[in-house]
């Protein structure tokens, strides 16, 4: 099924203090079912914007092009409908939700998605059992379930919480926005293990990063180079290595 995620000529802009700023300028990308792709690019190339536009953040205005997922017009869907359809965005720095109990949040999300997919909701006992299994696997303490979502979480705890959500919601397509996550190896490893554990012929992922390092843990099927709001080059996993050694210059020049 070649048109699992298909993006054509996507254009998007953001309102920067009253003046619109174009960020995506005609982006084309396809990620087939069962494959993991990576997007690399310099700062400001529009990588994070792409992940937000795909997940449905309304600060961004889509001004052209299309994005379909499983044959549906992704851009016409509400964020929660995209989640129900199987799209999952792992945030680079997830927002804190003071006052929202983590366990309650997880259960609400899981049951909302299950309901939308026509599956039976989990009762408190079944849910707790499912969560316990995952938290044990992720070496998370029960305490994290009792706290407010992401509030006072360390960097590693936040990543674990994102992966926990990913495992519970069982997406068919995950977007990992790791654009600026720097050199926190533990955090990268947690995310990588989370993704790798979901690898199957029915699961795809888009890994957004500008460090080759993450791709040592999640080996992609294809790597795309992004600059100025477009994909300017695509190739095998070896591109990442080239980038690490030589930087983006040669790709930028080739595209110019």
């Amino acid at each position, binding site marked *: 099924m070649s048109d699992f995620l298909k993006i054509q000529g996507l254009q998007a802009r953001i309102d920067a203090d009253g003046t619109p700023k174009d960020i995506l300028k005609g982006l084309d990308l396809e990620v087939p079912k069962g494959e993991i792709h990576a997007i690399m690019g310099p700062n400001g190339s529009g990588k994070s914007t792409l992940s937000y536009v795909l997940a449905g953040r309304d600060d961004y205005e889509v001004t052209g092009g299309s994005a379909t997922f499983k044959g549906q017009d992704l851009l016409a869907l*509400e*964020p*929660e409908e995209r989640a129900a359809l199987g799209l999952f965005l792992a945030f680079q720095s997830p927002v804190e*939700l003071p006052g929202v109990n983590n366990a309650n949040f997880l259960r609400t999300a899981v049951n909302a998605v299950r309901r939308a997919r026509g599956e039976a909701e989990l009762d408190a006992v079944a849910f707790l059992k499912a969560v316990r299994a995952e938290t044990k696997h992720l070496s998370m303490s029960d305490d994290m379930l009792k706290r407010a979502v992401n509030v006072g979480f360390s960097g590693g705890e936040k990543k674990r919480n994102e992966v926990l959500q990913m495992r519970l919601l069982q997406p068919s397509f995950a977007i990992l926005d790791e654009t600026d996550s720097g050199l926190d190896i533990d955090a990268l490893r947690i995310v990588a293990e989370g993704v790798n554990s979901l690898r199957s012929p029915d699961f795809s992922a888009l890994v957004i990063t500008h460090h080759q390092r993450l791709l040592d843990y999640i080996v992609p099927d294809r790597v795309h180079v992004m600059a100025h709001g477009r994909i300017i080059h695509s190739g095998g996993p070896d591109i990442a290595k080239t980038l690490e050694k030589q930087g983006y210059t040669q790709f930028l020049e080739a595209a110019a």
Partner: protein
Amino acid sequence: MTQNAAPALEAFVARAAGHGAALAETGLPTRRVEAWRYTPLRSIADTAWQKPAPLTAETTTALLDRLVLPETGARVVYGNGQFMDALSALPEVVRQASENVSPLKGLFSATLNTALGERGLDVRVPAGTDAGLLTLVSLSDGQDVSTHLQHRIVLEDGASLTLYDISTGEGRYIANPRFDIVVGKGATLRHVKVQRESLTGTHLAIVSADVAEKGEYDSFTLNQGSGLARHEAVVTLGAPHAMAHVNGVQIVDGQRLNDLTSMIHHAAPDGSSRQTVKTVLSDAGQGVFQGKILVDRVAQKTDGYQMNQALLLSEKAQINSKPELEIYADDVKCSHGATVGALDDEQLFYLRSRGIAEADARDMLVRAFLIDALDLVSDEGLRDLLLRSMTS
């Protein structure tokens, strides 16, 4: 400055017989009176409010049925200002208080109550006794009527009581209750109040609490009804190490106006006060918060903290907030914070990206906004009741 010619005032003064002089002099405050700048009393000025007829058994049952009430503890019911014997039982340990309490000068709700006062709850909890939970239900029903209950609650040294104070009604009326509270040395009064008056009702409550050494007045007010409601608390920490909590939640929708006004007076050293007030506004609701912390020269080492936050959920909603510090002692730690704003878009998006529908996500965030005020209610059972009340 005042609406002295108002029919309401004339009727009140006539009803007060010999006790209306102070009221006649003060009159009904207009918005030019600083304490009432955000809460206009125009809506009550043109009515000659009368004493209501006794509540019928049928109405009583109907009104009681809509309330979420604790299943344990003692319960006292007042209907249209009258004690309802058949429905009431006091905790066994309490006695009659019968203290005379000093009148609160210059506060309209108190002046009105003083002029027209009707005898209300009158209890004294003996030293060292825990009187448990007492539920006070105040019901109103009628057209153009008003009630002015005077409640006195005295906790002797080391005594404790949890008062669940809930009011509702039907029709167009004014409920103007007053609580004169004395908290003895090391005593604790937990005062949890739920105001669910009718949309055409007016609620003007005044609480005066004097707290002795190491005593604690721990209050929480849920303002969730009434076309116009002000809950006003004056708490005096008159001896060392006294403590006050004056917390609250206001949920205001429709065309309603809810107001929480408080004055925490630190009149002795080493006192502490905590206040968290949250207001959620939708439709054309108006919220008012006025909170003053007054620290006398003698009240060294006072520790005062106040936080008030408002969440605006609609274009027509409005909040007016006036947190105030008046401080005459130098060795104190006093601070307040205030925020006003809408729901956070980023938080909303996060929840939705996890598959939660927008309306549910909003509800979750509103509840989260309220939770740290609600969490301050120490009695778990009452906290659950409040949650149920808030969502019903």
